[in-house]
């Protein structure tokens, strides 16, 4: 059988999972500097703690130990937008809780956990009240309010105008933003056009709205020059109904004219456009589309634009070489921004691979993934003269490592950007700003219905058993959190 590697990803050294970490690049003092940086960040994060988020985190922590309960609550969040009315929400809640009560939890039961199948008191009460005609609406109202509160934490507003006050507040506090439009899946040309139009409208609204923001030099300049105030993240899957995993060219060709229009508006408004990465099914389409458009002569002078690189893919090192190679060959006035993330489609990648019988394309060992993230951080920082490195992680160790690596290389404070997600990384963003670093918060906007898929993914991430945020919230000792992966 022929080889299975992609032609664009030359067989690079893919670290075997569980191997001891190879020695880091010879930048002295990085490891030694990490504990102090991490401790300082953690202290600053403590000062910016949102008590409401803490309560929610405790609740999440409890349900994270009960995969069955967690599934029921996620499923309620997932179905909420499609429920007709409050009694309908209550009925769904009751049916989902019936399922929990009817079978033992799948996860490991530890001392102090509830016995299998038993519901915590508030949910048990909700289940029985939902069955009664008189109290059904009440349960539905409470369920809807719970979902709304959770969504509000992650979603900045219904639309750009709605989100502008939050964007301004953050800017004043020294935190930039990238706005992302949540929406239904795109299944038709009309829906793809509508998404493009929303993107353009958001660019205009934010551009007009941010013109009178106070100057924030750290947020507006780096080693390559001026940085736009307006920053929009776009999804290729929303720009075309033609994405097919087995035919990347089809989706890319269909999305190209729409993305080109967005890039033109961004160029004219001096805004930044960041193309989000999605699942591996569409990596080739997203990468090829983005790079080929940015190489077009009309975009040689702008806009500022970027792409996302996912460290959880086992071939991430080779893929980063593809991006850096392109950057070398394609000089632009605004160098390519590369947002380094761990990746948000881990479950999807694992499930899809297991169902189809493929080699799982992501690291299944958290520490192996963390090590890869640090290696890729080093590579990106080594190329800060070629591209704009963006470090997007909530893992205190990963962030502290990047800061130490930045300083060890003698890079200016504005040479690297740190990014967090609204609702999950707010205290970290504040701490990074206090540290004198450039930080940007990713702010989704859209209505509740539109936001649900995003919300569910964030919630899953936040309560995953190996989640850094969860470990932090549940009081794992700081020195353990800052250990080399």
């Amino acid at each position, binding site marked *: *059988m*022929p*080889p*299975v*590697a*992609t*032609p*664009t990803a030359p067989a690079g050294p893919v670290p075997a999972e569980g191997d001891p970490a190879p020695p880091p690049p010879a930048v002295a003092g990085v490891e030694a500097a990490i504990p102090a940086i991490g401790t300082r960040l953690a202290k600053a994060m403590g000062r910016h703690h949102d008590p409401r988020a803490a309560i929610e985190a405790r609740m999440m922590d409890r349900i994270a130990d009960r995969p069955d309960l967690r599934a029921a609550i996620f*499923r309620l969040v*997932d*179905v909420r937008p*499609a*429920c*007709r009315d409050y009694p*309908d929400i209550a*009925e*769904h809640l009751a*049916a*989902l809780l*019936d*399922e929990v009560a009817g079978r033992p939890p799948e996860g490991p039961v530890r001392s102090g956990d509830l016995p299998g199948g038993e519901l915590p008191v508030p949910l048990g009460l909700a289940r029985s009240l939902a069955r009664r005609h008189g109290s059904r609406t009440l349960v539905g109202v409470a369920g809807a309010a719970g979902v709304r509160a959770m969504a509000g934490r992650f979603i900045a507003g219904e639309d750009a105008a709605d989100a502008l006050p939050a964007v301004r507040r953050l800017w004043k506090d020294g935190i930039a933003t990238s706005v992302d439009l949540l929406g*239904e*899946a795109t*299944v*038709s*040309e*009309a*829906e793809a056009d509508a998404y493009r139009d929303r993107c353009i409208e958001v660019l205009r609204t934010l551009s007009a709205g941010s013109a009178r923001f106070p100057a924030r030099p750290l947020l507006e300049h780096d080693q390559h020059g001026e940085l736009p105030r307006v920053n929009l993240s776009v999804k290729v899957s929303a720009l075309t*109904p*033609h994405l*097919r*995993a*087995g*035919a*990347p*060219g*089809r989706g890319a060709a269909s999305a190209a004219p729409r993305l080109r229009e967005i890039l033109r508006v961004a160029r004219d408004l001096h805004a930044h456009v960041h193309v989000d990465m999605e699942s*591996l*099914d569409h*990596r*080739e389409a997203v990468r090829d589309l983005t790079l080929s458009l940015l190489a077009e002569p009309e975009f040689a002078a702008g806009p500022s634009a970027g792409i996302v690189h996912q460290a959880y893919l086992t071939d991430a090192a080779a893929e980063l070489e593809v991006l850096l190679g392109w950057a070398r060959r394609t000089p632009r006035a605004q160098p390519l921004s590369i947002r380094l993330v761990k990746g948000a489609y881990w479950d999807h990648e694992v499930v899809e691979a297991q169902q*189809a*019988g*493929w080699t799982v394309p992501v690291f299944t060992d958290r520490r192996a993934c963390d090590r890869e993230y640090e290696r890729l951080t080093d590579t990106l920082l080594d190329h800060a003269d070629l591209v704009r490195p963006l470090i997007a992680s909530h893992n205190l160790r990963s962030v502290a490592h990047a800061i130490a690596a930045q300083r060890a290389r003698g890079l200016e404070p504005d040479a690297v950007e740190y990014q967090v997600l609204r609702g999950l990384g707010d205290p970290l963003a504040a701490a990074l700003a206090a540290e004198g670093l450039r930080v940007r918060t990713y702010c989704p906007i859209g209505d509740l219905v539109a936001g649900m*898929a995003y919300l569910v993914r964030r919630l899953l991430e936040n309560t995953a058993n190996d989640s850094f945020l969860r470990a932090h919230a549940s009081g794992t000792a700081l020195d353990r959190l800052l250990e080399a992966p």
Partner: protein
Amino acid sequence: MTLTAAAPLAPFANEPLLELRRGAERTALTQALADLDAHLPLRAPVIVDGAERGGLPRRSVDPGRPERVLARAGDASAEDAAAAVAAARRAFPAWSATPAAERAAVLVRAAARLRDRRYELAALILRETAKPWPEADADVAEAIDFLEYYARQAVALAEPRELVHVTGERNTMTYAARGVAAVIAPWNFPLAIPGGMVAAALVTGNTVVLKPSEQAPACAAALYDALRGAGLPAGALHLLPGGDEPARALVVHPHVHTIAFTGSSAAGRDILRKAADVVPGQHHLKRVVCEMGGKNVVIVDADADVDEVVPALLHSAFAFAGQKCSAAARVLVHADRYDALAERLAGAVATLEVGEASVFGVDVPAVIDPEAVERIARYTAMAHADGTVLAQAPLPAAASAAGGTYVAPLLVAGLPADCPLLHEEVFGPLLTIEPVASVDAACDIVDASPFALTGGLFSRSPATVAHVAARTPVGSLYVNREITGARVGRHPFGGNRLSGGGTKAGGPDYLLAFVEGRVVVENTVRHGMVV
């Protein structure tokens, strides 16, 4: 060739699908297609006892470009069928006496041969049936799965069954091969379906006469080669490419014991009727394993996630131009969601890409032959006359210019309740959509249908899922996903009611259709003593 018993088999695992998102895999397939094209036409002769009979007067062609001849094929006659049955009958004593583990080993080796030719076979399926790459690849994987799965099932079936024991008697029950099996296969899964039926019959000790579809003789010849190359004796499998004549002769032959058929409902019922007659020289009742048509309904409740429903429906109804017996034909939507879903689905249907199967990403290829075009055109005319066409995907001029048998995919609403388009199997890229007042109203409609092959449900309430699962008679109900793409061992497949005899291919009971039970009750008491 001597057969040797194989080492114990590892537990069954589905053959991985090709990872078409990787450029290297697409390149390899494109190369395999070019290699195949350079060797056309292939040969698919009549083969009895390992020897070719007759000439190669028939042709199979690429439906997307009919001047491309895939294979020159034999045209088996009734005499050829009789010769094949006689040869199979001669070989039966030796093959049925071969230990199950050795028969299973033949299947496993044949699976390995298919695996080695993975890309080439996908290319062959693509050309001979205009089946696009993902489906052509899945066809090869499914054929491999059937061979591997039934091999393991047969080894397990050879173990004596547990019976009630009392002192003084020894009771055993075993399963024995029935005799000669006739396999009559369709073209739409040209490797997997004949592969599954032939493998099940052979591994349980039957000898087999395979009559493949006239549209796909080269795929059947590839299957034959894989099995013979794996050490299957010449007498155990005979190949009868051709038209209806050999199939008719096999059905009424007195020495055929089992008929395994997959195809249309009308043909299936005809076989059942004829197989019921005991003809002179016949000392047994024939058993018919039949998989027939369907009219598969997808129910969408008000709490469904429309974002998920639209792509799932699109794929279920239109992939491979709807030419799967499991394909979605009719959508029943809760009235609260009807307008939203109909509008979004219409927009999605308009994006379907019709074109040559070899182009990666093509959704809807040419249908199998001009007869299919005519049949579908009759239903399309009904759609325009009696209903509202909500969407129609464009036909590319270039594809039709090559003489390919293309049909425009259609989404239709507003049909009167008695319109044949709502009740008959179209076997083409047509989907109808109707509002219903409730899930129960939808279940009533499903229950009124004589077909019960596959069905779909989109609902996010566990209570609704349980309720519909209990009410619906279909062989396979798919919940919150597409309704095609059954995998061997995971989704046993077979229709109920007029959709089939109820056997489930790729399931734990399927092999029982190819064997008969034998019980031995031995008295172990001698002179009043248990010895």
